[in-house]
């Protein structure tokens, strides 16, 4: 009996003093509940799949990567607390959040501790605040919107537009960028309809837009709001082109809106339906793994994981500050770094450049209408 107790005690002590397995920690702070859950779940799954593949191929600097997950609840204050918790838990880089209203708050914590953060947010203000530790995984709407506006004017001949947008940090960013570009193009905005976050009933909004004399409507909401908007637009028989930036024509929106999504158009930085072999293969692996079609957020998360691997290995150590410095002005070519899927560059503000796509939803699928060059 005594011998058994001693051996058990020895085993416990041995386990207690055993050296920790070499492991790099990444913080995944993401919207897993609340209004951003659709986007956040995609981004999280992309990050997870990216790091699982990286670990299967030997990890980063021959060390395995552990992804610590934190739910921001789509609440800026919770997201801030979660970033702090991740840093306290010893992460050397952060992925997320997707919602801009959260990112503008929580990125200040990462900046304070000098931790590089790969965000899925697209509000222009994110990279305009001089934060050297924030990096996009898809370019901001101030870069996407000009491409889309050029296409609307040159290819669709739009002369007057209406705008429906979410009155949040995300929505304000897209709205401001769109209004500025329309002013530059000399195209009047004949109706401007803001909506609240997670708004459920869009009947009044759609009615105002429908009765306006706009040639086309720019729609800038999150996924679930976009789906509700499209269903209402279909119900009211709106016959104007509905054009969005990224979210309106996303896969989650198509799933939620069903047939009502057909005919919606928009600009996307990334699309699983682009005819790019590396992207197509990634999408197939994702579908097999998670049993649903990824949207652009999943691709953002996936490329964030691989970008971190490449840059960490360029620096030669998980040195957070050195990684952030290295990323500024960096270009990764997909031919040399296949995990980024498409050629990509970051400037001194953390903003990124990449080719993008103008798509139309037909029979529940994004169909690429044009490939738009980087700007």
């Amino acid at each position, binding site marked *: 009996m005594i011998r058994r107790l001693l051996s058990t005690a020895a085993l416990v002590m041995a386990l207690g003093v055993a050296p920790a397995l070499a492991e790099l920690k990444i913080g995944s702070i993401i919207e*897993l*509940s609340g209004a951003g859950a659709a986007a956040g779940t995609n981004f999280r799954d992309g990050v997870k799949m990216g790091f699982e593949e990286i670990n299967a191929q030997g990890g980063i600097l021959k060390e395995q990567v552990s992804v610590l997950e934190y739910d921001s609840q789509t609440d800026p204050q919770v997201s801030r607390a979660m970033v702090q918790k991740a840093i306290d838990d010893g992460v050397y880089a952060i992925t997320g959040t997707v919602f801009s209203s959260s990112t503008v708050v929580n990125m200040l914590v990462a900046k304070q501790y000098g931790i590089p953060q790969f965000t899925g947010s697209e509000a222009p203000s994110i990279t305009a605040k001089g934060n050297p530790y924030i990096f996009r995984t898809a370019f901001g709407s101030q870069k996407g919107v000009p491409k889309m506006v050029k296409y609307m004017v040159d290819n669709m001949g739009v002369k007057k537009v209406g705008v429906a947008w979410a009155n949040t940090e995300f929505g304000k960013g897209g709205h401001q960028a769109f209004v500025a570009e329309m002013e530059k193009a000399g195209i009047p905005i004949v109706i401007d309809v803001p909506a*609240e976050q997670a708004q459920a009933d869009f009947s*009044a909004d759609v009615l105002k837009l429908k009765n306006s004399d706009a040639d086309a409507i720019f729609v800038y909401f999150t996924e679930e709001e976009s*789906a509700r908007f499209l*269903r*209402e637009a279909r119900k009211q028989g709106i016959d104007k082109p509905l054009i969005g930036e990224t979210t309106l024509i996303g896969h*989650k929106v198509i799933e*939620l809106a069903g047939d009502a999504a057909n005919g919606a158009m928009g600009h996307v930085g990334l699309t699983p339906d682009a005819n790019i072999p590396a992207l197509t293969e990634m999408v197939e692996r994702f579908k097999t793994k998670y049993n649903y079609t990824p949207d652009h957020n999943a691709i953002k998360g996936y490329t964030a994981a691989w970008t971190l691997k490449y840059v960490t290995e360029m620096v030669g150590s998980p040195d957070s500050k050195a990684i952030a410095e290295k990323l500024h002005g960096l270009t990764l070519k997909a031919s040399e770094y296949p995990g980024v899927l498409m050629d990509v560059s970051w400037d001194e503000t953390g903003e990124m450049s990449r080719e993008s796509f103008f798509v139309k939803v037909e029979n529940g699928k994004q169909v690429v209408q044009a490939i738009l060059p980087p700007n």
Partner: protein
Amino acid sequence: MAELIQILVSGLAAGSIYALAAVGFTLLWQASQTINFAQGEFVMLPAFFVLIGMTVLGLPMWTSILLALVLSLLILGVAFKRLIVEPMLPHGTLPLVIATIALGLLLKESVKEFYGATAQPFPAIFPQTVYNVAGASVSVQDICNLVVSMLAIGGLQLFLNRTRTGRCMQASAQNPAVAEILGVNVKRMVLYTFLINAALATIASVLISPIYLAKFSNGETLGLVAFIAAIVGGFNQIRGALVGGLLIGVIDNLSAVYISAQYRAAMPLLLLIAIILLRPQGLLGTPEGRTV
């Protein structure tokens, strides 16, 4: 004019669904002095029963809706009464209110845990056809939602006023002691009330989920709107809850179009404040005194 017609139709269609949930508030209040703060979640949950029927069990839509109705009657009707209301009621209204708040959180978090945090597409039960009426686009879905809600509430009124069981339920609500002396099985009548509330919640859920999408957090908005509708109309009158629901639906749409889309959510609250200040019993409610 066309715009106004369309606003009224959309507002009435949405308002009639709020009214279904609001009637539940008044029914439970009258039958057992229960203010059910989980009412919004009661409307959220049946949509997930339907989805489970369709996606997990592979049942057709209408069979899934019937399954959802049965499950709602059992869980939101019988189990709610037996496991929460009956044990808590002897301790007074406040503990029961807190218990229903806790129940609402439990239902919401359970759906999030077991079904996921993201919204789910919910099949439309009515055709998506749109007709042009005097220049306004009027959808079949809106008209059907309005008709079904009105039929449900009208049927309930007829049941309560024209049938022996309905009158026994009213007697039990007005004075349970006297009703019992007169031979009414009060406990059974109260159970009927809970079952009717569960059935109304299921109808509201099936009607509103194609518009709202099925999501664990839908109850937050629906519960609040229905509660405001019940107070505005009169917490102790079914027809009050009906009027309150319709009024909120129409005011919400009118204010979004003609006043401000940004401040639309404030309008029902302003109406609530005005009603509480000017007519605390609600538009159609009757003053109710209670001994303290």
